[in-house]
């Protein structure tokens, strides 16, 4: 294929996405913007929200610039500590994304090998893994996370919970939802393992490990990517819920959920922006990831969807 032809195909593909799935295209752009802004937070944020020395209480609870009584140096206003809300949101989105992605990495690290193993070996091992996944899922992951963090807080106090909030959230959310990856990997592996190329590889003398790692895994990646997308949305939402309950990120290092919580206490005093603006950012993030996940699922094999 020459270069011009491949370019038309690529452009055609892009056009097809935009025409047939305008929602997905908008979601991709929205997610891209939020993710880039969050990643570049230290470069583009007007102030450093973690720098407590730079805060001035006199600046507290200033409204956004388009509301009367605002200070032009704070585009989205300030929170109860006098922190620039735009900077806090940029850094908060960064934390939310970081926790979400790392938690999903843990889920995949546990779930994918177990699913591959269960699907490839089958038999008793498959039974054990599938049963464990069923039980884990029936327990409600959000409830397990709430209980785990509540016990941690009760045991070691709010102080140490704040200090280890990021690793704790990542581990708790990560451990809770591995079954989605395991189920998908298992189902896809069972389909792939029966195919001719696997038998051919075995006839050529490939080891089981080689077959699973080099042949099956690359072929089941697409359903796993779909799961990963929806799981990232789930993990971000779980982190926000836990932070909203006061079991997640502390006020000194706020995620979007913490910002919503800290603003919620003041909302009836009229300072709606501290809650509403981070809330809208969180919804934008979650909607775009979920719409992307749905579009990916429709585009790839729909039969391997996890739920």
């Amino acid at each position, binding site marked *: 294929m020459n270069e011009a032809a491949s370019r038309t195909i690529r452009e055609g593909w892009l056009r097809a996405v935009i025409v047939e799935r305008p929602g997905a295209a908008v979601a991709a752009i929205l997610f891209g913007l939020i993710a880039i802004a969050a990643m570049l937070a230290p470069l583009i944020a007007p102030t450093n929200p973690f720098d407590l020395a730079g805060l001035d209480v006199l600046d507290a609870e200033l409204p956004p610039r388009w509301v009367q009584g605002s200070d032009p140096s704070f585009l989205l206003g300030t929170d109860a500590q006098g922190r620039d809300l735009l900077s806090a949101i940029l850094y908060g989105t960064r934390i939310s994304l970081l926790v979400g992605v790392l938690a999903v990495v843990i889920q995949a690290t546990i779930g994918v090998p177990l699913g591959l193993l269960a699907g490839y070996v089958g038999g008793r091992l498959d039974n054990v893994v599938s049963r464990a996944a069923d039980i884990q899922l029936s327990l409600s992951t959000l409830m397990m996370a709430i209980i785990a963090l509540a016990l941690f807080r009760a045991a070691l106090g709010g102080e140490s919970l704040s200090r280890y909030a990021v690793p704790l959230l990542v581990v708790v959310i990560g451990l809770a939802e591995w079954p989605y990856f395991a189920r998908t990997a298992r189902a896809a592996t069972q389909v792939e393992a029966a195919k001719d190329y696997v038998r051919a590889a075995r006839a050529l003398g490939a080891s089981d490990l080689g077959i699973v790692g080099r042949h099956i895994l690359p072929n089941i990646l697409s359903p796993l990517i779909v799961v990963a997308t929806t799981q990232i949305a789930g993990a971000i939402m779980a982190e926000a*819920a836990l932070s909203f309950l006061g079991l997640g990120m502390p006020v000194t290092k706020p995620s979007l959920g913490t910002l919503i919580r800290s603003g919620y206490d003041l909302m009836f005093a009229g300072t709606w922006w501290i809650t509403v603006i981070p*809330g809208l950012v969180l919804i934008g993030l979650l909607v775009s990831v979920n719409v992307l996940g749905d579009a990916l699922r429709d585009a790839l094999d729909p039969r391997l969807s996890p739920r």
Partner: protein
Amino acid sequence: MTFIKEFAAGLAFLARRLAQALLVMLVVLIIAFAVRTNLGDPLREIVGEAVPEAQREQLRHELGLDAPWPVQLARYIGGALHGDLGTSTIYKKPTLEVVLAKFPASFELVLGASLIVLLLSLPAGVYCAVRPRALGARLILGLSVLGISIPVFLTGIFLITIFSVWLGWLPAFGRGETVHLGGWETGLLTLSGLRHLILPALTLSSIMLPLFIRLVRGAMLDELGHDYVRTARAKGAAPLRVWFGHALRNALLPLVAVGGLQVGTLIAYTLLTETVFQWPGMGFLFVEAVTRADIPLITTYLVFVGLLFVVTNTIVDILSLMLDPRISLEGAR
């Protein structure tokens, strides 16, 4: 003869299911006991901080708190069987009493939300299944993605902002006036109580609704592909009758099974909703117990939620067995 055989198999299934439920409860109690002995000091619950150390030692001995842990575990489980799960350090009352007093509030919130979900998800789900390409169906499914994406506490906050802060139509916090009926404190019999229920119930239903619309739609799509639907249509039955009278009836079976599995999720979302609306239910109580490190209250909540979970799952299992003659008792393990 076959009837007796069936009956015996049914009893055996019931016995096995109950044994499983008891086993799960035992595990929950052991976890609660481990948390209590490692994180809390049972002595402090009883006498407070002011007692000198020497006297504490003696009390500890008299109360049997220095006994080996298997003995203490046996005592804890024995106490649990009599409804004694400790004393709350905040309320200075038996924890079970405190939790049970909050149960009606949570129950009525869940009841209100379930009614909304039931009344909306069945017609919406059926509609999306029978007219999958219609604009309305696409709109409902699109909105359901939006509904799934909005965290339940944000739905609550936005509803409060609109209907309480801006419009001033509905109250934002608490249960309003309640009436005592025997031991049950209900908010369903006063106008104020009902008005207070609207926003929290809407909030809680907003997160379950998209899920159930998708479940109903999926189950209906499965049923509509079956031959009996075509036969019914060929016999001249009206479409509405075929959808609701025939297909939905059969689609309800998987719905009961899958919906029943959502109890844990429902409890978590109820906890979040109660926190937003300061609804005086069990979830709000739990958050308060966590903030003030009331270990006996925390563990009692865990045991109670575990019990709710086990009871619901057992009932769902037995129900789906009774509803569906196709699930054979021999295979149901």
